[in-house]
């Protein structure tokens, strides 16, 4: 009986159903928590990139709701304080060694200098390329010039130990990961240029609009 074909089929069906049902239950219980964790992580990284401090006694969510405005375009986050724009972050991706690197790059209101970056998703080699997600690597970008007055990209991740003053030192042994970050920087420069142009056309007096 146990080895009969009909029992084999019935048994497979019953067991599969039981397993699938129990996984469905577990997943529906866990999913809201998981989504909340992911969202909190994303918000925390946005705050970090924009350079927004988290005062003691406040949660990431509260600070985010108070200070961060999403721009008109998708993937743009603005930090407003006392009615003034403090920094603008762009959500961009690039191709690393093992997978896609997704990062927030935050610029100063002049849209030319970098405030900070925060790598949001990466699958680089632990101990090598994955170091791009560390604070130490993030700090290398602070205050660097992303684009020159004509809007051309000047900032890039150089090979480790060979960075010019305008560039950022890469991680030794992770040159391809650095190239992925460079792709992100190029895309951000492109979007920053578009945003500056849009501002110039809107009659904004505070930004020099280099239209060629």
């Amino acid at each position, binding site marked *: 009986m146990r*080895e009969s074909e009909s029992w*084999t089929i019935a048994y497979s069906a019953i067991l599969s159903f039981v397993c699938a049902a*129990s*996984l469905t239950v577990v997943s529906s219980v*866990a999913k809201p*928590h998981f989504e909340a*964790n992911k969202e909190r992580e994303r918000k925390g990284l946005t705050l970090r990139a924009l350079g927004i401090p988290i005062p003691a006694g406040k949660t990431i969510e509260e600070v985010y709701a108070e200070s961060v405005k999403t721009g008109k375009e998708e993937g743009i986050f603005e930090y407003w304080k006392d009615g003034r724009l403090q920094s603008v972050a762009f959500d961009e991706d690039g191709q690393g060694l093992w997978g896609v690197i997704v990062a927030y790059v935050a610029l100063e209101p002049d849209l030319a200098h970098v405030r900070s970056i925060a790598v949001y998703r990466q699958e680089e080699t632990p*101990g090598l390329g994955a170091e791009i997600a560390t604070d130490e690597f993030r700090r290398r970008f602070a205050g660097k010039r992303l684009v020159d007055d004509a809007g051309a990209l000047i900032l890039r991740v150089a090979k480790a130990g060979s960075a010019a003053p305008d560039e950022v030192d890469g991680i030794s042994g992770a040159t391809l990961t650095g190239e992925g970050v460079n792709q992100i920087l190029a895309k951000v420069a492109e979007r920053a240029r578009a945003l500056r142009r849009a501002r110039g056309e809107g009659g904004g007096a505070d930004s020099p609009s280099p239209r060629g």
Partner: protein
Amino acid sequence: MPGLSANVKTFFWKNNPVTCQILGLCSALAVTTQVRNALVMSLALIFVTMGSNLTVSLVRNLTPGRIRMIVEVLLIATFVIIFDQILKARFYDISKELGPYVGLIITNCIVMGRAEAFAIQNRPIPSIFDGFGNAFGYGFVLMAVATFREVLGSGRFWKVQILPTAYEPCLTLVLAPGAFIGLGLLVWIGKAIAPTSEGGN
């Protein structure tokens, strides 16, 4: 029928699944850069092996012989996914650090090996003990290798600096070769203290 203590003793050292049977190496090499990750991985394996051994044993008289291995994998996968979901919901940081390795427990030879070699032929209670003993042996090796690698490789234990900063961390130990060296030493010590029948020539 060997009880809990006998099982733990056997698989803890004399017939340890990692150092004597050389099973489950992929994860043992991958997650042992930090003690915390190794502990979570060990707990995951204990949970999965006990759960899969219990359920495989419970349905052993109903399972057609032809599809028994598929059934074993199905049950193992179910427990692995449950653990992964709990981790993602409750310990998000750890789940991120372990990355794909929790999911890869499905292919861990120790789990499948115990289901096929023991649970499919034995009653539920001994099967649970057997699962625990093996997974505990695996966890012990993981913790030993992770301690060795984290302390000497980064000067820390459980992410806390314990060696003086003057100590220059041995980077090799944090990278993949460090796991081979640590595990190799353990296998050597294991064979030297308790030679197994397979070890002789």
